């Protein structure tokens, strides 16, 4: 019996090792190829150059247009997801009665289960033409449509995690607030929301990290033109969409063009990794203890 136990423990350990090994492998591949890339392109040109045309006859390796594209789309997504997600979290946690919540919460979470390729075509073929009714200058590929759709996609992430955080706030705090004569709204916004702050912030940062890494929606609907702009009406290209574009072309392996996708991937990885670290740190740092 003891031996059996031992075997199981080893099997479990191997499973854990597999995922750690995969992560390590990814980091090593990214690092090796990025290093090879940076031997040919100075890191200052890569990080601060404003033109990204690595596939053309006169290549430029400034990653800023791709970073700007990613930030633009993510900001639009957060502008949609943050207020809507927070408000629906407040409603679900504080106002909705249990029956409504039991019904609405899973429905909201279905949004997160829609395949992103569906969201991509939804942005390209429905949202963008709809927006063009009001904004005639809107290009067919643009940052606005996919940004809004991406916001809808990450909305359940924000609302669900925030609602969990608010639910974790002890009843006593709410009752104390009511006892002092506060209204329901004052209690929700001034007591519960601040008390759940760390959880909500962590949720938001996770949502940002999800938006930054989102690939399919922007690859389909945002265009493929690296452009350093804050104008959401124009075709842009995000870091993820660039990686897709090169992976699908005929770019031969081992060339500098091919290595660009690893360099961009590394930057993307570091970005989301940093966001996740900040999210964890915030959650631990500002956790309110109610014991």
């Amino acid at each position, binding site marked *: 019996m003891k031996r059996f136990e031992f075997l199981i423990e080893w099997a479990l350990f191997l499973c854990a090792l597999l995922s750690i090994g995969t992560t390590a492998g990814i980091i090593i591949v990214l690092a090796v190829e990025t290093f090879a890339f940076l031997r040919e392109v100075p890191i200052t040109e890569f990080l601060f150059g404003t*033109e990204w*045309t690595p*596939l*053309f*006859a*006169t290549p*430029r390796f400034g990653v800023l247009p791709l970073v700007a594209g990613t930030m633009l789309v993510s900001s639009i997504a957060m502008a949609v997801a943050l207020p809507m997600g927070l408000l629906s979290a407040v409603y679900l946690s504080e106002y909705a009665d249990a029956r409504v919540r039991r019904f609405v919460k899973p429905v909201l979470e279905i949004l997160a289960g829609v395949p992103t390729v569906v969201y991509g075509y939804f942005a*390209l073929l429905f949202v*963008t*033409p709809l927006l*063009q009714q009001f904004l*005639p*200058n809107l*290009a*067919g*590929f643009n940052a606005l449509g996919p940004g809004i759709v991406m916001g809808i996609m990450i909305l359940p992430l924000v609302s669900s995690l925030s609602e969990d955080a608010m639910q974790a706030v002890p009843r006593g705090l709410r009752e104390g607030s009511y006892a002092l004569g506060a209204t329901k709204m004052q209690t929700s916004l001034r007591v519960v929301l601040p008390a759940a702050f760390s959880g909500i912030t962590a949720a938001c940062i996770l949502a940002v990290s999800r938006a930054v890494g989102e690939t399919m929606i922007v690859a389909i609907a945002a*265009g*493929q*033109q*690296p*452009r350093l702009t804050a104008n959401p009406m*124009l*075709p842009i290209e995000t870091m993820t969409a660039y990686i897709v*574009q090169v992976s*699908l*072309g*005929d*770019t031969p392996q081992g060339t500098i063009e091919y290595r660009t996708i690893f360099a961009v991937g590394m930057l993307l990885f570091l970005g989301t990794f940093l966001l996740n670290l900040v999210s964890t740190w915030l959650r631990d740092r500002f956790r309110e203890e109610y014991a």
Partner: protein
Amino acid sequence: MTHIPYSVRYIPVAVLVITMAGCGQTTNEGGQEEGAPAALITLDGSSTVFPIAEAVAEEFGKANPNMRTPTVGISGTGGGFQKFCRGETDVSNASRPIRPAEIEACQKAGLEYIEVPIAYDGIAIVVNPKNSWANNITVAELKTLWAPEAQGKVTRWNQVRASWPNREIRLFGAGVDSGTYDYFTEATVGKEGASRGDFTSSEDDNVIVQGVASDELALGFLPLAYVEENRERLKIAPVDNGKPDDGAGPITPSAETVRNGSYQPLSRPLFIYVARKAADRPEVQQLVEMFFSRSDLVREVGYIELTPQIYELARKHFADRKVGTAFGEGGSQVGMTLEALLAKER
């Protein structure tokens, strides 16, 4: 071009399928492969010609189930000729006539070849159907618009032609890995692979169709066959090359104007070069004959078939084993019809 990357994406699948088919044959039909010693036919070269060659190779494989399906590589026209002149391939696919340096390399190796035209490729300039001003465009204007110097500078319609509106122009074009891009830049800018970099560049032609069809301020270039599939969603801008002798004024691209050589410079013939030695093998003869007789495949994969007369002439040249190239000095010859070239003595 869409058909290229799609096909390329499926190469691993194709290889797998072929390998599996091969395994199936050896297990199920045993000695049959040993009984059919016909050697594998190898094709390599242009990625533009690839879809046609691949389609023909597939049909050949279907027609000859006991022979191995010919392999089609995509080393590019230049890379294909390098292998071809070293005698590594039987057939070289080319989206331009053989160049003098390549002629020399083949001569040195003592390798003779037969030049066979198989189809035309045309590139159309398209704008949005709501665009009311761009009713035609000149080659000089295309150069202004697409040259590397234009990057970040030529960004409005009225910078291309003063009478066009002072509005932003949004550009779409084939990806830099495609033969369409290479030929477009060579024909307009004057140097292969030289263009501005600030446009939506996609290997997937559907992206370009979608981009132009959904944006009033867009202009793009596309393989002609693609435009014909999307006639209602795009508006074609006829192209004027300023040379009245091959058709005066702006010419609308169509199968007709591409064939008679008046839609210049954005159309070109495509070729296969068959090694003289390989031409004596019956299976190679059968394959080449399929390039002539199955012109429906050419249309199917998005190109324009030659006229029956040219197919007839090409067939005769191949039967007579006429070696060498009709393009004396080599390289692209703009504005010369295939009839005239094929009739030329060499």
